[in-house]
């Protein structure tokens, strides 16, 4: 075997002469670090996995408290990114499903009330009622977009109604729309959602009364529902009964069951 001594000066830092003490020390320290790190990771995961559920406050419940903090942070971050310029892609009406999928009947199980009217609470003491005919008199907006369910499926469907922003202008609710949230619920109050105002005022957010070019059938939320393409389906409340405004988060059905409050797309 040839001598190696003469090659040593040129040797790069990758290769160094074997020193048992040094090698043992490096092995010991690094192995211990990995074991300690593994133990720490296990401890941290165990603590997080068994973390107490959040205390039901601020309109959310059901999630592990530390996770909820991050979800809310994500939501705040995303809320700032909501821009009226960022539109959900729209499609030709012909591409829309003839029979859009129906998923869930919470809040609309009971029979539809004959004399339905939307109740708008301007503040704690002042409210007024609007009939469907009055709403239909406002400028109509219709488009087809890819409706997205929190479960993961999506479907192109065609909806028509009044832009929420047009509605706000027409009924002189600009003062109310300066608040942080709008709350909506069904007449029986069994399903309820809270929507941040930037998303509510987004140009594609509709108070919707038509699907596939026809009046909404009961299962799609007749007579008036929310269509908000910048949110998952869980926020697209069917059969709107009441509307109110708030700087606090309005109660939200799915956010109380561990889902993200913002649920924005």
């Amino acid at each position, binding site marked *: 075997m040839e001598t190696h001594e003469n090659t040593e000066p040129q040797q790069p830092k990758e*290769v160094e002469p074997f020193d048992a003490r040094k090698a043992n020390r490096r*092995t010991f320290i690094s192995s211990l670090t990995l074991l300690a790190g593994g133990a720490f990771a296990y401890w941290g995961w165990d603590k997080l996995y068994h973390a107490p559920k959040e205390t039901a406050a601020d309109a959310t419940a059901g999630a592990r408290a530390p996770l909820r903090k991050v979800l809310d942070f994500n939501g705040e971050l995303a809320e700032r990114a909501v821009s009226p310029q960022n539109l959900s892609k729209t499609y030709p009406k012909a591409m829309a499903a003839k029979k859009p999928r129906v998923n869930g009947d919470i809040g609309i199980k009971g029979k539809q009330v004959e004399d339905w009217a939307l109740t708008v609470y301007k503040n704690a003491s002042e409210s007024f009622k609007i009939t469907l005919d009055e709403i239909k008199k406002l400028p109509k907006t219709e488009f087809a977009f890819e409706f997205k369910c929190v479960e993961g499926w999506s479907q192109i469907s065609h909806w028509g109604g009044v832009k929420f922003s047009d509605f706000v202008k027409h009924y002189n609710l600009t003062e109310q729309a300066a608040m942080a949230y709008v709350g909506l619920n069904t007449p029986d109050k069994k399903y309820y959602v809270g929507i941040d105002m930037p998303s509510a005022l987004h140009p594609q957010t509709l108070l919707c009364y038509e699907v596939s070019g026809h009046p909404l059938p009961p299962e799609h939320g007749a007579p008036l529902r929310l269509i908000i393409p910048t949110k998952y389906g869980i926020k697209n409340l069917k059969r709107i009964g009441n509307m109110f405004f708030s700087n606090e988060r309005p109660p939200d059905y799915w956010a109380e069951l561990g889902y993200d409050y913002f649920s924005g*797309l």
Partner: protein
Amino acid sequence: MKYIVNKHPAAIRWFHWINFPLLAVMIWSGLLIYWAYDPYAIKLFGHTFFKFFPEWFYQKYHIKRRLAEGMAFHFVFMWLFAVNGLLYVLYTAISGEWRYLLPKKSSWHEAWLVLLHDLHLRKTAPPQNKYNAAQRIAYTAVIVMGAGSLITGLAIYKPAQLYWLVWLCGGYKTARLIHFTLTILYCLFFVIHIVQVILAGWQNFISMVRGFEVADASTAKIIAKRDNDDGNA
């Protein structure tokens, strides 16, 4: 005489071992999400070969009806997973470690020879530096996959705000399919990775912990020479 051959810098070892549990949590929470809408299957000529996933799988690992939980974990750990991955890429770029990791022109042909050698169809393996040609391709591919997961993940996460990313991914549905497929590929990567590590032996494994291998004079000299070659190239 024996030599210490320094192989993996401490930073790479940290990134590697931190990534392992993070990716595990991402895959597990991803499964909880996927269950809520699980249409994917391997189908050929109308015959379903495998459904993602069979009922027994969901049952055994308690995957069912945990969508909210899955989303919560997924959208918390995504930050850690992404930051760790981005720091790794930044580190390899700045430190020059990319020279050992990126495939070279010769890697594509050499990887084939490595494969034949690993399958005992060829006696000798092509000469290598820290990583052989197959490793260069695999370790670079897995980073490209990671980038793919981030891009498709963002596209599914905020399709309205990041509409241009959705377009880049070929649509919302396609983005979800790619996101899922990449996850399956991570699992395959993991299996092959573990088998290779077992076959390569203890020295190779422990070098990912302590950073160095102990080599005899001839091996060390070859490594030293090759490292110089790389430097001159």
